[in-house]
């Protein structure tokens, strides 16, 4: 892949002629720097004049209107508005109406930001009550409305067949807008296995969205259960075998680990007796149908189970208990005691087709769902396989619901928090102190207590933000101080020779790990270390302001590995092979 990318990029370059043009432009622009403000002033006058002309033209060109109507039975309710047609422009530039049964209008301004979302019939008014969408992007406003549709049962798996038709006047902008909106509706509907057809008819620039519920077309299950009348219905995939690790201190305390890959997804609980651990785990596997008789008529999937790495004194107990359970269950399974493992296999592996869907790890994780606000799609599939919908709701103590995640990228911390809260999320903010700028920065994490699963629309779920950051600053630049723009920050770094300090550190052989504080907060220990070394060689440590102890979160040791200044440890990522 590396070579492919290199080869592809090697063809990317400016033509020599273009390079020359740009170089000349750069040179001319530099000479003109001093007169630049005059040029800007002139440009501003021209721009103002252009705006006046544009407003005047807007009055005589009805096609400039971006009114988008959705043709349904309720079309008469649709409010068409022709904006910007007088010298006194209306702040509402376009109106988009969404009709399922509740009809809702999105009034947007010229830049595409929402001014307000209002209901245009009784259900619509009830639906958007208390919704504050002002200043949001149309995408996020749609997400909020769609989440409310889900919450209020307008989009569920028992939904009757509905048809939404969106028709628009003209122009690419409007089509794109509708595509974004229909994409969000599609995402939400697919979460409930609702069939969605989007037909875009070119001649009228219309978009048709048809939602067909479970009483319409039966959705395809995401995995294929084996036919019930098959004799060898069970499947097993030994390659996918995961390990349950037992760790004990004597025979008093024990941990059950899901797997041994150190990514902290293990489940830890304390037991009094190793036998109890085995008993508990095995019973769960049998109860939930994951250890089954491979030759039973209703068996669908069988997993190979391996109970491994019990402590020395626990090995025999594990084997004893497991074999006792298997014997009592009457299942046709074999249990073997290897050097340090207790393994359970099918009695006749050769006859079993090998196509299991889930790993032990995933299955066992579902045991502990009550403690989790969110579950993965795969865990959901496992649950659906084992339980009915009602049982799942009972098990989790919450109604089954999906949530479409708003797009927080590019928002300030405050706005992100407000948006997430409006979408029904519980938001936690952790502040930390940035000694370089004496500013408060923070990390926002969120979850939705009412949701089983969140659906992202092409973005990351986990965000780090600067709280109190001035408007217009990107959310991902977590190291930019709260009171500076990115450009100011960069200018600050370079103009104050902070990059010089970096080079000095390098030249005195400071290990790279110690230089990480340069762009962001560092711990007290690091600060002292820098200072000590730099003092010796007479370099002033200018860019680190005096430490304020009260604001300090604590070192790695003090915060129990939370990371310096409250930064959480990075999410487990696979090693990048190269």
């Amino acid at each position, binding site marked *: *892949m590396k070579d492919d*990318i290199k080869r592809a990029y090697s063809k990317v370059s*400016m033509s020599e002629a273009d*390079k020359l043009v740009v*170089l000349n*432009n750069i040179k001319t622009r530099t000479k003109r720097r001093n007169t630049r403000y005059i040029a800007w002033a002139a440009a501003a006058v021209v721009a103002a004049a252009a705006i006046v002309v544009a407003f005047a033209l807007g009055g005589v060109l009805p096609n400039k209107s971006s009114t988008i109507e959705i043709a349904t039975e309720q079309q008469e309710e649709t409010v068409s508005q022709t904006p910007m047609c007088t010298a006194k422009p209306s702040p509402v530039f376009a109106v988009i109406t969404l009709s399922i049964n509740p009809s809702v209008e999105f009034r947007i301004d010229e*830049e595409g930001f929402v001014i307000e979302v209002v209901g245009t019939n009784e259900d619509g008014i009830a639906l958007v009550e208390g919704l504050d969408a002002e200043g949001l992007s149309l995408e996020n406003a749609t997400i909020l409305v769609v989440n409310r549709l889900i919450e209020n049962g307008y989009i569920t798996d028992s939904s009757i067949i509905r048809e939404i038709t969106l028709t628009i006047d003209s122009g*690419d902008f409007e089509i794109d807008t509708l595509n974004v909106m229909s994409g969000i509706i599609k995402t939400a509907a697919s979460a409930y296995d609702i069939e969605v057809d989007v037909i875009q008819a070119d001649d009228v620039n219309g978009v048709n969205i048809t939602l067909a519920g479970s009483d319409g077309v039966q959705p395809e299950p995401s995995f294929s259960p084996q036919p019930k009348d098959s004799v060898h219905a069970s499947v097993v995939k030994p390659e996918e075998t995961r390990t349950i690790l037992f760790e004990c201190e004597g025979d008093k305390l024990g941990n059950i680990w899901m797997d041994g890959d150190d990514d902290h997804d293990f489940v830890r609980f304390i037991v009094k007796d190793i036998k109890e651990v085995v008993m508990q785990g095995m019973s769960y596997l049998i109860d939930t149908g994951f250890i089954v008789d491979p030759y039973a008529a209703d068996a669908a999937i069988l997993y190979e189970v391996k109970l491994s790495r019990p402590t020395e004194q626990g090995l025999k107990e594990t084997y004893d208990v497991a074999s006792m359970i298997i014997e009592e269950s009457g299942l046709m399974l074999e249990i073997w005691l290897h050097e340090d493992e207790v393994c359970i296999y099918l009695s006749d592996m050769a006859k079993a087709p090998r196509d299991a869907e889930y790993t032990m790890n995933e299955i066992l994780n579902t045991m502990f769902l009550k403690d989790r606000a969110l579950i993965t799609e795969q865990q959901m599939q496992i649950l659906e396989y084992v339980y009915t919908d009602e049982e799942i709701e009972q098990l989790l103590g919450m109604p089954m619901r999906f949530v479409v995640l708003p797009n927080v990228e590019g928002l300030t911390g405050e706005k992100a928090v407000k948006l997430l809260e409006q979408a029904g999320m519980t938001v936690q903010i952790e502040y930390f102190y940035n000694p370089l700028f004496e500013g408060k920065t923070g990390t926002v994490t969120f979850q939705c207590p009412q949701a089983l699963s969140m659906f992202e629309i092409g973005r990351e779920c986990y965000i780090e933000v600067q709280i109190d950051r001035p408007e217009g600053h990107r959310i991902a*630049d977590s190291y930019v101080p709260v009171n500076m723009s990115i*450009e100011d920050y960069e200018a600050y770094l370079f103009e104050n020779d902070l990059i010089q300090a970096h080079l000095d550190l390098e030249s005195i052989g400071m290990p790279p790990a110690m230089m990480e504080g340069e762009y962001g907060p560092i711990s007290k220990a690091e600060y002292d270390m820098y200072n000590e070394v730099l003092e010796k060689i007479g370099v002033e440590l200018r860019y680190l302001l005096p430490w304020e102890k009260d604001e300090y979160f604590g070192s790695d040791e003090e915060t129990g590995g939370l990371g310096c200044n409250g930064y959480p440890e990075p999410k487990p990522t696979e090693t990048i092979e190269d």
Partner: protein
Amino acid sequence: MDSIEKIYKQHVDAIYRVCFTYFKGHKMDAQDAVQSTFIKLLSKTKHFESTEHERAWLIRVASNVCINMLKRKHKTDEPLNETISTSDEMDYTLSEVLKLPENIRVSVYLHYYEGYSASEIGKMLGKSDSAVWGYLHRGRKILKQVLGDDCYER
């Protein structure tokens, strides 16, 4: 200070490719961004320790310039996707790289073409190391899917 011409010739290709990546192959925008980047260089009285330092600074500035330009374009709803350079000169791998989300495609370019480490990229883009590792990981995963396993060597 080195003459602007010399610096320009040294780095223009790399900076152009960064901007090209941000603008998903839209040449005119990329050239505008290159121009703004070098103008910013001229406005600094800063002396760089090495060519490498200078390059890193330029990449960081280029990245900020592109992000700001994209933000402005987004607000004035100028579509970008429509104006990708003509497909005859667009390599399939490249077009797939350019389809990746912004941070991912830039990280992929800087890592695989320019050979920067995740930590260096993190400093240039103002991200944490782990974020960049995540981008690279996701980028590889997506590219593996679209380009197939054959391309996924080593």
